[in-house]
């Protein structure tokens, strides 16, 4: 059941690099990460790759396989032809550190800019009451494993480095939506989504949802509903008129 597979893996650092060819054993049931590990153990001991749980739960091993963003641990070798050359490259949107490892600090910076959960002041711990149907909306977004594949794929930053300042990306716009839909969060998240996190940059091409390994409906369930709330607040002509007439802020 084993065969010799052909691989091209990007090797290098922030000063440059190139694709390197390898021929390596592939066994039944393996995933791409297994092959990368075999390369480390037998041919390239200093090949840098991030990984952790190897079960699609931690979101560490994000990369691009034949140009398609995915988790190395959840991409099975059986989806490829044995004769196919498989190309593994690092995520393109983030600066290279070495080989398949990128600098994902952009994401941590953005995470820190979102005001945290604002708990109700009148409820003590243990007094929280919420209905399952109400928590489920935010629970879907909390399935996020922070692999940052959506961030990597979103063309707003993938093709426009200059947007990184103003745009938090699908993962963190979804975090804003998650807090907005939290049954007990007391903060207002609508204006900040648009003004501070660049929701308006998103033009709902749904690439983020397509690459999400957790199959979260990022665009349909998080971003579009947030856009609707923003539109209701900021652009509804009747609301606009009401605000003008009654001087609501």
């Amino acid at each position: 059941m084993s065969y010799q597979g052909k691989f091209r893996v990007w090797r290098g650092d922030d000063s440059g690099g190139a694709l390197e060819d390898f021929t390596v054993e592939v066994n039944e049931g393996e995933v791409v990460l297994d092959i990368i590990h075999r390369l480390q153990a037998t041919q390239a001991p200093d090949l840098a790759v991030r990984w952790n749980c190897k079960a699609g739960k931690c979101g560490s091993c994000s990369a691009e396989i034949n140009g398609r963003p995915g988790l190395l641990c959840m991409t099975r070798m059986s989806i490829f032809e044995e004769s196919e050359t498989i190309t593994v490259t690092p995520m393109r949107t983030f600066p290279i550190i070495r080989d398949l490892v990128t600098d994902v600090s952009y994401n941590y910076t953005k995470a820190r800019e979102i005001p945290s959960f604002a708990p109700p002041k009148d409820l003590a711990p243990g007094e929280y009451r919420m209905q399952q149907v109400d928590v489920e909306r935010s629970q879907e977004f909390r399935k996020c494993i922070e692999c940052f594949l959506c961030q990597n794929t979103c063309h707003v930053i993938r093709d426009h480095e200059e947007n990184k300042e103003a745009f938090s990306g699908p993962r963190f716009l979804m975090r804003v939506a998650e807090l907005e839909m939290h049954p007990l969060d007391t903060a207002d998240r609508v204006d900040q989504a648009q003004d501070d996190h660049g929701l308006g940059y998103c033009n709902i091409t749904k690439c983020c949802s397509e690459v999400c390994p957790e199959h979260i409906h990022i665009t349909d369930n998080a971003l579009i509903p947030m856009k609707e709330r923003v539109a209701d607040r900021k652009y509804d002509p009747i609301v606009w008129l009401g605000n003008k007439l009654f001087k609501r802020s």
Partner: protein
Amino acid sequence: MPELERHSFDVLVIGAGGAGLRAAIEAREHGLRTAVLCKSLFGKAHTVMAEGGIAAAMGNANESDNWQVHFRDTMRGGKFLNNWRMAELHAQEAPQRVWELETYGALFDRTKDGRISQRNFGGHEYPRLAHVGDRTGLELIRTLQQKIVSLQQDDFQEFGDYEERLRVFQEFTVTELVKDGERVAGAFGYWRESGRFVLFEAPAVILATGGIGKSFKVTSNSWEYTGDGHALAMRAGASLINMEFIQFHPTGMVWPPSVKGILVTESVRGDGGVLRNSDGKRFMFDYIPEVFKDKYADNEEEADRWYTDQANNRRPPELLPRDEVARAINSEVKAGRGSPHGGVFLDVSTRLPAEEIRRRLPSMHHQFKELADVDITAQPMEVGPTCHYVMGGVEVDPDTGSSSVPGLYAAGEVSGGMHGSNRLGGNSLSDLLVFGRRAGAGAAQYVRALGDRPVVAEQAVAEARATALKPFQHEGGENPYTLHMELQQSMNDLVGIIRRAGEMEEALQRLEKLEERARSLTVEGHQQFNPGWHLALDLRNMLLVSECVAKAALLRTESRGGHTRDDHPSMDSEWRRKLLVCTTSGEGVRVEEKPQIPIRPDLLDLFDRTELEKYLTAEELS
């Protein structure tokens, strides 16, 4: 020599899983400048792998539940070897720690009246596990991560700097603790990304590094679990207890080979899943041990009725503590009644409607579909035991998490005592929170009371640096990957789920040879993000900890919880009164017996005398 990067903090927390983050939150809330050092990215720690839930006697699903019942279950699960004070604190404080998570923003699954839903689990008398589907660990880690961010935002408001009092150093490995005389003075390590060395000066260090599973071949643990905290503590002069007790989780994936060992949550059984052998028989009825006969159903009808009527029926034997189920599966496979790939069948497809399975067990459904091409709503899973958890760890003071070394604390899996000889499912996440918080508070108190701060000796720093660079000095020596594979194979085969004296003696001989070869490890390339070098340094810890496991296991001539001796198959009440304590003075591991602390009388009174007779000696009962 490039200049050494230096930082100074009040409290260092090593590890960013549940225990580490909870400890850091506590230390920071006490106003101390706190740093978290972790090997992976922030938010990726092994806690994300926890699936089933957090055990806490909130009584939401069954009003009869309370801390005393939880305490009893925990002691039974650990076969009474537990540190009773830890078990007591844990049972009492777990509900508060869970409710507190809600104030941080956690969203647990709900009961009909809007409270936190609780599910059944092995060894727990009542439905007790707060959960989010089967991804509770992810919820826990994300919630704590977001709480840390929230505290950093507070500091930004107050000081204009997010990292004024709480900073996370991610992808950073600690290789050595440094001391000033008897006291802890800081930690030395390197950035994984650049390989540059860093010295942290701090009067208090909290170890929260998790377990040791990477010393075994078949394991549910990630690469991080190399026993770093266990080894750091020992080298700093602290002692480890209970190292012979390793939990083999009964249900790991067995196929395909590349995912062998990955966890299949106990919730599958808690929610109705059953274990069958190749004859289609629910074999667990044949494996109910004497001590549990009155608590577990001996026929399928009663077991099935229990899911809807717990007051009038005994529990299904699939929900026995993990050590019992793991041994049973092992026996079935050995007797030739296993599944095609060397496990047994775990079936939930005939027990629940497909829709319900997808709702309650979404990540299991996803995991089997993606990795094994198995649809668990239509087919059984193949499962077998996998190395999951080490009960043993740093010997600590229950109330503060302090080790015997002043300034050194431990919490979570790296600490020992709480779970005795076997941990119940769901008691790990609650352990992290209860004792993470306590260690954070303990360290804070210690630092506050400190007169003069310890000073790091430059000599110690130079030695730590030399040790870390050693693998680059050799040429043509051993490959760390090869050595690691041999270690895993030896531990798996010789100190695994069923143990024999001869095999463990052989394991110790092999370990000695591996230690010798490890001295000439060779690493190619340079210090920047070099996985070969990282493994070479981690191997040192794995070898030390493996020696503890093998030596303690050889000495304990009885079977109890996560320690099963083929040559000493029964439990021995005399051994319950003894702990095996591991220390090192540099060369090799020393293991000594130490008397177990007797259980406080009012806690003993929570049990029937007939039950105590199964565990305690006549002398203790009189």
